[in-house]
């Protein structure tokens, strides 16, 4: 398999970074008498903290990262090609396998695209349910993001175990709604399936919402205010707003650099324009900023979920109907972005008059945010590289597709 590589770009260097020593990463470094030799290290694809099968080809000067080349493709499943052989509804199951930590937002991007091809809009109740699922999904994903970041800076799995336990409750809710815990395949054109909402969903979701602020506070006590954690996260891996924009970063990676861009506000979809929530930003652009943006977004998502619970009592009980035949007219194409936990998730589809899309293209935020890693990590130590990498919060399923 031919693996893809990129070395990052963007303007400017990290202030403390030494100039990149050699341009050709594969060329062995010249050993000069009295000077330390550069060491090339294959960091991954099976390394405990590459969150899956990412491969970083590092050039090290002692412990300092001189160059970092991102190699990926080890988890490539040709999902975009497979989608051409699936129907518009059946193919949704493929996008569950992309960012499997937050499959609901993937479902949403997919189904909004299909709906735009068909020119249909689901009834309000369906939209409220979808937004509620998206936001619960965001909470779950941000728990993983912050908990695993704790492990990346060296907490021995404690924060990860907490995060997974807290996420588990949200997965239970998803199980009630759609019978699946990770790969939901919940949305349908114009509706969701099953259409009947579970019996005591409100009590369960409210219980989660009640516990969430305490847990965010627990995370703050455990990590944010820990002196060692601050040493490892504050000022490390600064990404300027200009660089973040020129590398088209989105999500907490962009908002951590002070750019208040959120698809839910910039180009509202579903019912987001009616909801009351803040776009969280931090100006520092360091690992701490990205981490704090996630924790604050958990609280904002909780706000949205509570609003959705109230809205569900008000809106009409109409759950919509799934069209008998999902066959958009030939030549139609649509591109829809939703705000996933990791950034803007985009789905492009082109119809050719058959039940299958002619072309599907997925914009995965993890993949694009990962492009900022070489820029951010040059000049930092190996330990900081892990901290920076963890603060981007990528998902390899989505990077490789």
């Amino acid at each position: 398999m031919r693996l893809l590589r990129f070395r990052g770009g963007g303007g400017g260097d990290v202030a403390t970074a030494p100039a990149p020593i050699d341009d050709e990463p594969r060329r062995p470094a010249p050993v000069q008498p009295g000077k330390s030799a550069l060491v090339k290290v294959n960091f991954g694809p099976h390394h405990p903290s590459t969150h899956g099968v990412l491969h970083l080809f590092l050039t090290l000067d002692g412990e300092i990262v001189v160059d970092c080349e991102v190699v990926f493709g080890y988890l490539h499943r040709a999902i975009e090609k497979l989608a051409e052989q699936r129907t518009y509804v059946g193919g949704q199951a493929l996008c569950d396998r992309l960012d499997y930590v937050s499959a609901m937002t993937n479902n949403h991007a997919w189904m909004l695209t299909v709906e735009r091809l068909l020119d249909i809009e689901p009834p309000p109740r369906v939209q409220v349910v979808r937004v509620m699922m998206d936001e619960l999904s965001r909470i779950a994903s941000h728990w993983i993001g912050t908990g695993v970041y704790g492990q990346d800076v060296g907490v021995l799995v404690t924060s990860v175990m907490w995060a997974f336990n807290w996420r588990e409750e949200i997965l239970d809710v998803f199980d009630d709604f759609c019978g699946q815990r990770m790969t939901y395949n919940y949305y349908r054109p114009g509706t969701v399936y099953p259409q009947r909402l579970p019996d005591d969903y409100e009590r369960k979701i409210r219980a989660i919402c009640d516990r969430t602020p305490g847990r965010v506070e627990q995370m703050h006590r455990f990590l944010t205010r820990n002196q060692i954690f601050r040493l490892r996260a504050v000022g490390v891996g600064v990404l300027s707003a200009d660089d973040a924009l020129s590398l088209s970063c989105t999500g907490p990676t962009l908002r951590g650099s002070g750019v208040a861009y959120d698809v839910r506000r910039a180009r509202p979809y579903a019912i987001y324009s009616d909801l009351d929530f803040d776009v969280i930003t931090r100006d520092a652009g360091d690992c701490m900023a990205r981490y704090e943006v996630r924790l604050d977004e958990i609280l904002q998502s909780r706000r949205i979920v509570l609003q959705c619970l109230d809205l569900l009592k008000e809106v009409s009980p109409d759950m919509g109907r799934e069209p008998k035949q999902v066959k958009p007219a030939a030549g139609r194409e649509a591109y829809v972005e939703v705000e996933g936990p990791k950034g803007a998730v985009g789905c492009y589809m082109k119809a050719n008059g058959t039940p299958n899309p002619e072309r599907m293209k997925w914009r995965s935020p993890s993949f694009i945010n990962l492009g900022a890693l070489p820029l951010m990590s040059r000049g930092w130590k190996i330990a900081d590289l892990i901290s920076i990498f963890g603060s981007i919060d990528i998902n390899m399923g989505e990077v490789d597709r």
Partner: protein
Amino acid sequence: MIAAALPARSCGSADFICGAGSRLHDTFPGGTGDVVIAVIKVLLVANFALINAGVMVLVWRRMMAFFQDRLGPNRVGVMGSLQWVADGIKLILKEIIIPRRADRTFFLLAPIIVVFPFILAYAVIPFSPTGIAADMSIGILFVLAVTALAFPGVFMAGWSSNNKYAMIGGMRAVAQIITFEVPLLLSALGVVLFAGSLSMTHIVGAQQNVWFVVPQAIGAAVFLMAAMAENAAHPFDLPEAESEIVSGYSTEYSGMAFGLFYLAEFGSTFTIGAVFTTLFLGGYRPLFGITVIPPVLWFLAKAYLVFAVMVWARFSLPRFRVDQFLSFGWKVLMPLAFLNLLVAAAELAIFPHLVA
């Protein structure tokens, strides 16, 4: 002297054996008796050290599970009490894979070198008034010297593995011991100043009036941190930082070769607890004069308490970066250790009756 002060029935099992040894010595004065006593003591200490390390693994895992909202091992034996035996058997049965271009001799020698020091250190730890395998006059010096012997083993492991991560881990280990050996010795020096002796039993005896953790609070804190750093215990486990350099110096090890590193880690964690107890927590001396509990149990309880504190730190703190960590050693612990020495001298001049 101290043994005579305590009632005979309060002796632990270690006392019993050693007492039997001295009776044997009376019966057979000369060579044979001495040899038998020595063999019994060596067997006792070595086996206690190894079995205790296994028990610590269990305590460690259950505590870890407690911190992480999960159950931990609870299937093998009563409440998972035999899990460490099962793990040991598994490790012994597994193949020791040696990388093709590794230096075989040093690769296999390294875990053995690493595991010896902590067993040797047990020899001079006074578990009870008579429960000490070798009451050396330079006990504390012996402990500190012998535990430092593990690091050549660690560096050998890192170097012989022919792996870049292992090499980085080994180099970090060397940087670490150079940095933290100094504050460790300096903080122990305060206690030596108080006790006026390097002997472990004398140090315990000198704490009759007050445990040294009270006048030597800074020293105790510095000693614990420096000892944890020297033992590469989290949050100072840079030589084997999992999220950075896979498993550091032990990356290429498998089977019982890895098991020995694991054993040494836990064994030396207990050694820290035991030495800390001896130096600062009054050793086997009872708290509030409760002599019903035998001294050996008092000692173990205190040592396990220190161990529990270390496990607590292990699962609640993130890891330092290597440069931050080394500057912490030189710029924070070192001055504090010197300050502690000054404090010790001043206290000794002002309150000479602190020491028994």
